[in-house]
């Protein structure tokens, strides 16, 4: 009697088809060794939004009874393998359906495995991944996050590479032969994908994570009110009017204290306050009202409120004044404006390094020009499938295309 429970933590919309393929692949692969299984999504995660952390699950078990025993919950309370298909999820997740920030390894059982696609080092990831009160394994598949759209999947083999890695992690449930056999039969399978499974199986990197390792930050959380503590009439207090930043100058809006949204972000704007012309466009166009107005009239993107959509970068009329940079190269949500105010030269050096990192400034989501998808697919699929190609159509396209 045994069961294998897996969760796939993914970015809403961008990876929903990827996650569904992975969980489906787990069940069909385990079926090859006579297991029963189910693949399902956390219904509360819908309606999905671009980039919002969401979850799919796969449970496989020896018997139907054991499968039912594990299914009789809205979502599993513990998982043998947590699969994170974007390494920026390592900072923790705040789903539409959850409350507070949840460490990415929260459901992973002691001595279980956290499997991630990443090109970061183990140590770099463990600066973000929260400390856990039990040892576990961190397994890495070398790949960039596979992002696409609502109805499509980027055929970069990420789904089968995850399955190949799982054959290494949980061989008693998913044999390599079982996975390869299943892949060929699944509607999206192919011989080329079977090759990718085998390579991923061989190349998986893995190491123990000790009790002492990890980000020591205590994730924010709050108590849910009792029914008689809640306001009646399906009403909630409006967000109050904000306050000046300091000395009666600037403006910092009040924000929802219960839903911060920043774990939706895969890229963040890095701002050059020296070249800002105070045109207000970023502040006005930001769909999440994430910009605080500073006393000097510049705009600081509040990193607890920014979803990383990149609209500010697109509307900014000044060259390289706002540049979107991958979330993986940042360790905290500190104010850029405060950094700049305290040490202008130091900030300049920091900013130049961030926006000069060609790997980190590749757009993580969305296609920036017609034909980008085809270009990316031509590249070596083993390397994650994505070559550095970026750029924004329109007047800003030239200088922002690398």
């Amino acid at each position, binding site marked *: 009697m045994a069961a294998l429970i897996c969760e796939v933590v993914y970015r809403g919309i961008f990876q929903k088809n990827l996650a569904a393929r992975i969980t489906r692949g787990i069940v069909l692969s385990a079926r090859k060794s006579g297991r029963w299984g189910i693949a399902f999504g956390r219904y*509360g995660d819908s309606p999905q939004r671009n980039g919002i952390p969401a979850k799919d699950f796969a449970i496989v078990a020896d018997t139907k009874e054991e499968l039912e025993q594990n299914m009789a919950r809205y979502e599993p309370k513990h998982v043998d393998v947590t699969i994170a298909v974007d390494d920026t999820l390592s900072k923790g997740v705040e789903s*539409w359906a959850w*409350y507070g920030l949840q460490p990415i390894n929260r459901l992973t059982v002691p001595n279980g495995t956290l499997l991630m696609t990443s090109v970061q080092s183990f140590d770099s990831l463990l600066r973000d991944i929260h400390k856990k009160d039990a040892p576990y394994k961190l397994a890495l598949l070398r790949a960039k996050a596979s992002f696409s759209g609502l109805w499509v999947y980027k055929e970069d083999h990420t789904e089968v590479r995850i399955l190949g890695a799982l054959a290494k992690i949980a061989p008693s449930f998913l044999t390599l032969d079982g996975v390869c056999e299943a892949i060929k039969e699944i509607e999206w399978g192919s011989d080329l994908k079977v090759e990718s499974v085998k390579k991923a199986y061989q190349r998986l990197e893995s190491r123990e994570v000790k009790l002492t390792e990890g980000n020591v930050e205590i994730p924010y959380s709050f108590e849910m009110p009792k029914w008689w503590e809640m306001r*009646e009439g*399906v009403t909630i207090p*409006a967000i109050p009017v904000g306050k000046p930043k300091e000395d009666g100058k600037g403006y910092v809006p009040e924000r929802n204290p219960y839903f911060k949204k920043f774990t939706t972000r895969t890229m963040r704007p890095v701002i050059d306050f020296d070249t800002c012309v105070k045109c207000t466009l970023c502040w006005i166009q930001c769909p999440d009202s994430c910009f605080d107005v500073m006393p000097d009239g510049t705009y600081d993107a509040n990193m607890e409120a920014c979803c990383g959509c990149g609209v500010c970068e697109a509307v900014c009329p000044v060259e390289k004044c706002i540049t979107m940079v991958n979330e993986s190269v940042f360790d905290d949500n500190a104010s850029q404006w405060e950094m700049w105010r305290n040490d202008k030269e130091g900030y300049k050096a920091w900013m130049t390094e961030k926006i000069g990192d060609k790997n980190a400034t590749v757009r993580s989501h969305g296609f920036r020009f017609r034909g980008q998808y085809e270009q990316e697919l031509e590249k070596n699929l083993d390397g994650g499938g994505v070559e550095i190609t970026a750029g924004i159509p329109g007047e800003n396209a030239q200088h922002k295309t690398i």
Partner: protein
Amino acid sequence: MAVVTPAAPAATEEDKELLISGSEAVAESLTLADIDVVTAYPIRPYDTVMQAIAKKISGGQLVAEYIVAEGEHSQFEIVKHASTVGARVFCGSSGVGWMYAMECLVVTPPLRVPMVALVGNRALDDPGAFGVEHNDALVVRDVGWLLCWIDTSQEALDTTLIAYRVAEDRRVFLPLAISADGAFLTHSQALTMVPPKSKVDRFLPRYDRGDLLLHPDNPITVAPQANEDWVIEIRRQNNEAMARAVTVIEEAYADFRRVFGRGPENPWFEEYMTDDADVILVGMGTISLPIKVAIRELRAKGKKVGLVRLRWFRPFPTEKLVAALSKAKALGIIDRDYSFGSPFGSGVVANEIRAALYNADRRPPLLSFICGLGGREVTLEDVYKAVDLCTAAAAAGKSDAKTHWLGVRE
């Protein structure tokens, strides 16, 4: 267009007697309650109410926003929103018109909007028919609407005033539908006592939406999206409001009697000759009239028959009704509605009463009758037949667990 000069209100403490229909009686009450917003869309028989209100406004007796919507859905949406900004509102419909507003009707209770509506009961199409059936109003019985049935023009007038008092009580804040049988009540004029405004003012306080008022000085968001982590708590709140309505209804009727010097001691149901009755019939609305006449005929022949006419269906007066009914030797529940495929194929009221009696120490045999659908006349013969079957059940000590259709060609 003739210029209408508003008549000065009579400075009198006396009630005045008018010959008015149930619909006009409701309009009299709305004028006395000084409603702020009313929306209208015609459908028979409710349309008589909207016409009566329009006359009140054009005659200068009532100052209110009168909005003709493009359909019932908007009709109920408009008053729902008006109520959240503090307006006292009125709305109404009938049959499939009420059904067309359903999306709005189901969200009104969780938003705790004390909308008062008149449902002129009408058979659901198809077939297109104007006559009374109670299925239209009953459709909202599970979702948090307060529901009551009225019998006379006087009760229409009095209940409308009581409705605002109950619905707008901060402990309740739930929508309230007053059901009036199409034709029999909405279109029949009867002598009705209309109280002076001064009395009404002593009975009915201003609508104060308090902390739920949508206003720039009270910034709130109404009806945000929520998931499974919030919904059951919201339902639990709704349930509590419905439970609290019991006390509020009893308070309101007691106060009504104090101020107006009339009205029932028991708000929940009328008991007619039930004290020594072996057979008690139960029904809602104007069906009481043929039943009462039949009971008098039967009593003259020595048959001990009584009637319980249910006024309040939500909240359902479970304990009081069980106490009143369990003393009989047999019960006959006469539904002017149907519930196809329900237990025993009975009507809605019969099944509610069966459920209410389940834990009673004494459960008389209960017979279910369906009768008067689509506005068909309920004849004395129908009632006699029901009583005969009930008398047989009383003698046998058990019911046949069947549902009897009365007055159907067979």
